[in-house]
């Protein structure tokens, strides 16, 4: 079966000038050679800590940013080679839900206008028809018709996220990218929104790229999970397999860092030394080697490659 989304060797470097006049140009290597594919109806989770490049990847896929190198294929269409007309149509097919419920909605627009704007831009509905369609969408995400005329500040964080989801669904996308959609929400609300995502996927046959820093949430909702570190994917496997058998030392540390709800077990935790390095000064060789508890000589100088070392399980590490 043909995948819905294919990302090939995506790179995004942001130039940063050092020094006042003639400083050397350093590059922030936000995304540095990322490749993956998502099948129709599948959920791929993208997990990593701050600075790993997952949000930048999301924006590149949607062409909210232009890449430094690489290509993204939606179906058979290369996204970065699309002209304006093609891009306009492509935009209907892939949408995004953002992290911050407080800045992702225009504060001076009513809910009806926010959710319905996609319909207007793509000439799908106007006037009364638009109102009806928006009301349907609101009901689909667990809100009601009475919310049509209200403004964002009248809603809680969880409700605003629902509005954001309704807005994304209005144009009928096939792919939905969720960029940390529950990180800013209270725990009891997170579960509601996660359930909503799952219900919608089943109802509408959506494909998800689900980005988060919390492995628990990502594992729960994803079929497969990709772990990112400093602009690259270091491990990619099915959800259960990743948890059962994490191969990359970084994944192991991530899993081990997650607190466990069982006060009786005293686990042996892998505590990583040092801080996440900055994407401007990328370490030579394997990017993780300065913090890796299992590093050896080869890691300092030679960068590993993402390889399939077990069925449907890819790792980028010299240990394998």
């Amino acid at each position, binding site marked *: 079966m043909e995948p819905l989304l294919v990302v090939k060797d995506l790179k995004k470097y942001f130039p940063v000038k050092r020094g006042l006049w003639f400083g050397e140009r350093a590059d922030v290597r936000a995304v540095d050679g990322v490749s993956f594919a998502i099948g129709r109806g599948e959920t791929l989770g993208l997990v990593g800590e701050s600075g790993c490049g997952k949000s930048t990847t999301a924006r590149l896929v949607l062409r909210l940013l232009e890449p430094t190198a690489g290509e993204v294929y939606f179906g058979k269409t290369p996204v970065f080679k699309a002209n304006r007309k093609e891009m306009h149509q492509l935009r209907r097919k892939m949408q995004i839900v953002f992290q911050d419920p407080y800045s992702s909605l225009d504060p001076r627009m009513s809910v009806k206008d926010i959710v319905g704007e996609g319909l207007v831009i793509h000439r799908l509905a106007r006037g009364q028809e638009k109102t009806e369609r928006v009301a349907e969408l609101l009901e689909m995400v667990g809100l009601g018709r009475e919310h049509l005329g209200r403004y964002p500040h009248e809603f809680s964080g969880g409700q605003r996220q629902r509005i954001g989801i309704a807005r994304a669904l209005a144009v009928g996308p096939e792919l939905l990218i969720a960029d940390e959609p529950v990180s800013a929400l209270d*725990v*009891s609300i997170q579960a509601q929104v996660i*359930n909503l995502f799952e219900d919608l996927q089943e109802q509408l046959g959506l494909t998800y790229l689900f980005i988060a820093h919390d492995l628990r949430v990502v594992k729960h909702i994803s079929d497969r999970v990709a772990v990112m570190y400093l602009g690259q994917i270091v491990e990619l496997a099915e959800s259960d397999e990743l948890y059962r058998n994490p191969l990359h030392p970084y994944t192991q540390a991530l899993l081990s860092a997650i607190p466990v709800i069982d006060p009786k077990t005293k686990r042996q935790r892998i505590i990583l030394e040092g801080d996440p390095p900055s994407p401007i000064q990328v370490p030579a060789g394997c990017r993780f080697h300065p913090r890796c508890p299992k590093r050896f000589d080869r890691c300092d100088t030679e960068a590993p490659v993402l390889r399939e070392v077990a069925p449907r399980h890819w790792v980028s590490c010299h240990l394998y």
Partner: protein
Amino acid sequence: MRNGSLLMIQDLQTHFFTGEGVVRAVDGVTLSVRPGETLGLVGESGCGKTVTALSILRLVPDPPGRIVGGTICFDGRDLLRLPEEEMRSIRGCAISMIFQEPMTSLNPVFTVGEQVAEGIRHHQKVSRREAWDRAVEVLRRVKIPDPARRAYEYPHQLSGGLRQRVMIAMALALGPRLLIADEPTTALDVTIQAQIIELLMGLQEEMQMAVILITHDLGVIAETADRVVVMYAGRVVEEASAEQLFETPLHPYTQGLLESLPKLEVGKRHRRLTAIPGVIPNLLDLPTGCKFAPRCPKVIGDCWPTEPELKEVRPGHWARCILA
């Protein structure tokens, strides 16, 4: 409630007088902490846990907030009746606090060494030189690499994890008996979070300090707390030892929180999360009777109109629910 406590809060009430009405942020909270113990204070936004912590140190912004009732006994003295000067000598010395966002809690125009040293000099009569040396010592104790050099750096030159360590250093410089940590790791990456928690627990044991750890992350609580207090809408709804709470939670809110967390288990992916329906109540418009009743899956007629009392259902395990 208990003897031998280091800190005992009785029936604390802290209200905010806003243009839209009175917000009862903390409405009758009673809890205590023993010397050397870690008390976990858990709840979501608006439950009153941060305001409780600020009330202990009398840092509630006034206006619009005010502590309108209750007592807070620390070492036999009621903190709420102390004159401000004595409070100042307690803050940072006997009781310290660290906050969630280290960037906004550190002064950007002073080096980290200066900030730690200043705290020391405020409470003890020592020379600048000596205060600086002690500051470097404390920075070393919180495992900041190369502390003598880093003491000369400014907050913006440090990463989030290091800044949090500096905050901890400032709080611990004078060996407090009680440390209040308000969401100390929420703003940090999960691997850094693990480092910081490990550091705090190590220091606690070393210094025999009591810790009130405020967080919404039940996992962190499970790993670090001796006893746990769960708050909702400005009041305590459950209190127990960590083991008791996670093994047999009595209050439906606690049960709901535990069930709504995605678990890292193999093979259970398609189990739907059991979410708590509804939203956190608006503190300006609380229902009569049990405050959790509108969202409670086990609600019955008797949950209105009187609010249940906090009862000791089992030894050491209290719950504010008529069904417990």
